[in-house]
């Protein structure tokens, strides 16, 4: 089982997502903005990072780039709402491995996480 860093400024979304991940047996660490995510990534060395795009302080795209600079092999999936296609494209270019669209159904999230951790 893996350690997953969950980054979202909305506590509700973190809670919801963490439940699914915990149920799968993963350990979840959380951050609520991009800047915290970068810190947390360095401290916790998660195997997978789920990164929200729209966040205060430092948005998901910037955080993605910052994390990728520190660890080019970092596995990061973006969490995005509908209508943020161009952001997701930017993220993929910057090295995001996958993306999950909100509101996500559990099945999709599980599939994405399993695929990335495989």
């Amino acid at each position, binding site marked *: 089982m893996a350690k997953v860093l969950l980054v979202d*400024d909305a506590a*509700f979304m973190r*809670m919801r997502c963490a439940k699914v991940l915990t149920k799968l047996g993963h350990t979840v660490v959380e951050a609520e903005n*991009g800047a915290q995510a970068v*810190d947390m990534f360095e401290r916790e060395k998660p195997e997978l990072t789920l990164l929200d795009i729209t966040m205060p302080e430092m948005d998901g795209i910037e955080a993605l780039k910052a994390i990728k600079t520190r660890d080019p092999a970092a596995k990061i999936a973006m969490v995005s709402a*509908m209508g943020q296609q161009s952001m*997701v494209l930017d993220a993929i270019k*910057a090295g995001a491995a996958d993306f999950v669209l909100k509101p996500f159904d559990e099945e999709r999230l599980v599939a994405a996480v399993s695929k990335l951790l495989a």
Partner: protein
Amino acid sequence: MSGQPLTFDATPDEMVVFLSEAEEQMELLSQDLLRLEHEGDTNSELLQEIFRAAHTLKGSSGAIGHQRMAHLTHAVESVLDQVRHHTLPVTTPMIDLLLQGVDALRVLLEEVTTLVESAIAIDDLCTGLNALTTPPPVVAQPVPGKRDESRPYIAQPPGAVATAAPSAALWRVEAQIAPECLLPAVRALQVLLALSGLGTVTRSEPTSEMIEAGQVAAGANVTLWLAPHSADDVAAQIAPTLASVLEVTVQAITPEGHTVAATPPVVPGDQTASLWQIAITFNARCQLPAARALQVVLTCATLGTVAASQPTLEEIEAGQVPVDQPLLVTVSAPGPLDAITAAAHAAIERIPEVQVAYVTPVGVGAQLIAPASSATPMPSASPTPSPVSTPLSIKDGEGAGVGPTPASHAPRMVRIDVERLDALMNLVGELVIDRTRLARISGKLGQMAHDPVLAEELTETCRHLARISDDLQDEVMRSRMLPIESVFSKFPRLVRDLAQKVGKPIDFIVEGKDTELDRSVAEQIGDPIIHLLRNSIDHGVESAERRAAVGKAPAGQVRLAARHEENQIVIDVEDDGHGIDIEVIKQKAVSKGILSAEAAARLSDREAVDLIFASGFSTAEQISDISGRGVGMDIVRTNVERLNGSITVETEVGQGTRFTVRLPLTLAIIRALLVEVAGQTYAIPLTSVVEALRIEREALRSINGRAAIALRGQVLPLLHLRDVFAELTSTGRPAAGTGRPQGSPTGDTAERAARQFVVAVRWGERRGGLIVDALVGEQEIVIKPLGNLFRSAQGVSGGAVLGDGQVAPILDIATLIKHIIATDRGTAVSQGAVA
């Protein structure tokens, strides 16, 4: 329909987080909307913040399945998105509509708690909001049947050795969304998903992307092409499948002549080439085909050099990737087919939602076997394979160019129930009392010490404990503090609405939002401030015409400012209106019978202005809709004083009026004057104290059998506290918690010293004097609620823990002053009636 029971997809613990977060975001939204109206779309941080708030709300409400809320937040978000991209100017009607949206969201949020659908209709609101946003240009769809044959759904590999065998027929399904359908896109999506169960939806009009983006109109036709999984009689299954989707009528199900190539072209596995075409298909449910396509192209770059793709990289980046057409990537990589195919499958199928349909050779060396139709060359592609984890800089070259980011300074927050903080505060209070007792015991032990070293150790420990508990008390106190912003945040909206209502433009300035105060105070000062703001807007600020006539700016200025001064929080509500006319006030007060004409004439200006706080006084000529509904300044003053605060007013005719409210930082600690009566210490809240003075016994007058003194030309009725509390003790209700013996229960005036002390106190505009034995001094006291023992003790409102741990009753000035007045009218009780 209103009244319908609702269910939401969230566990109770999730719901708590959802609710508090949603409330937070709505609060932020309404505040920021007002800032937006004020500042315009120049502050990009504000634009981002406000968009985020709507965005978060949309995400969370969607996640719990609150469709109406998600629908409305989506409309709000769309407007804010365009505003933040400066494609939509900020206008007052827009802000109006957005604010109405937030109001409606609050109602919808309540549904989460009530679980009953509210009567609120959001369709008009959504329509209004959607009308603000310019609809994105709808990409013209090719007419079915007239499809451009040069771009088949599944491209035949150029120079194909074998023709793909037909695997299944293609069905065209036409359905109409009901004209009265509220969420046509949802219905269209349901159709799409239902058909996906029968096979692969190779294409749809509108496209699945448009459907998911909500670009489906009610009453629209939806056409889908279905490649069934099996060759069974699919036509017979389509209609029943779609029957489960509400508000959709199937118009036609027709077989199409075209076939879909689902099998790879036959090519010998050992054929070598250096240029390959890889065809990739997307899952029908793939949500962002462009993003997947980009992943594919980037991954193909690890197999070799990407020479071309269809759609082109530019199209992919522009998001123009149809989910129902294959992505063709031309890769330059020397090797046998088997190896390339295996590598392609291995690399590409790690990407979710895509499959490699086939890999086929298209050329040897730089020589193309046949040009890939409409594929554009990509000379800029990397000549060497790059590891997939390296961010490819394809266009902007910024990929990995981000330096280390500074560490986050964001405080890490935890939500705590207020009740827990209160409990903590209480426990700390207990601890302080025990600490003081422990110190006393330690002191006694030290005196009779058999073991001076041990005694010293105990003393030292007690000292340490004292320090720790003091710090603890400070910390707990601080944790209960909130910035006054939590109170102020609702005012801009209120002021805006009031200003609109009375038709006076108001420039509302808020200062000192960060000023912290205890939550107990924060919870209670809102109403008095609202009343003051209403008063300023309604009575203070003149109409725009009148302002123009006296040369003032058309917009009245109302300033709300908070700051700390010593241990108080000071709140100013100030306007630049016409001020208070003292003569008008005096006349009014006389006509209302509040005082005589002679008394009015004697009043100083300050005293005259203070008349507005007199009960039954209302300056408004006619009772307006906004303030003056019988609730006057006297209520404001009473409420402020109940919080151990005070209110003063300064005014200058023609220049404006300023109300200043002073409140303790916390209700748990107050400043008090300590007095001694019959050997017991009592605390009088300093906010009630007018002055303390020493009087000679001879100065005492007896007027109508009641003690009184003349103070500054006025008669101050007096009350002997000794008598009041003597009665308490004589009826078996001790007035002190320390169990000290009380003073003599009789009113033996002879024993009293020649000099006495009078504390002049005030409640509202009523004054009285309390006769005490001694003045002990001013001190900060920690208020403890009293037990049942004291609950019925008249004249005592609580207990104070003094520095030495002693508990001093806090005098209830309101009750004591009523006593004095009752006595004055000769209707009550003997106490206080001193000869």
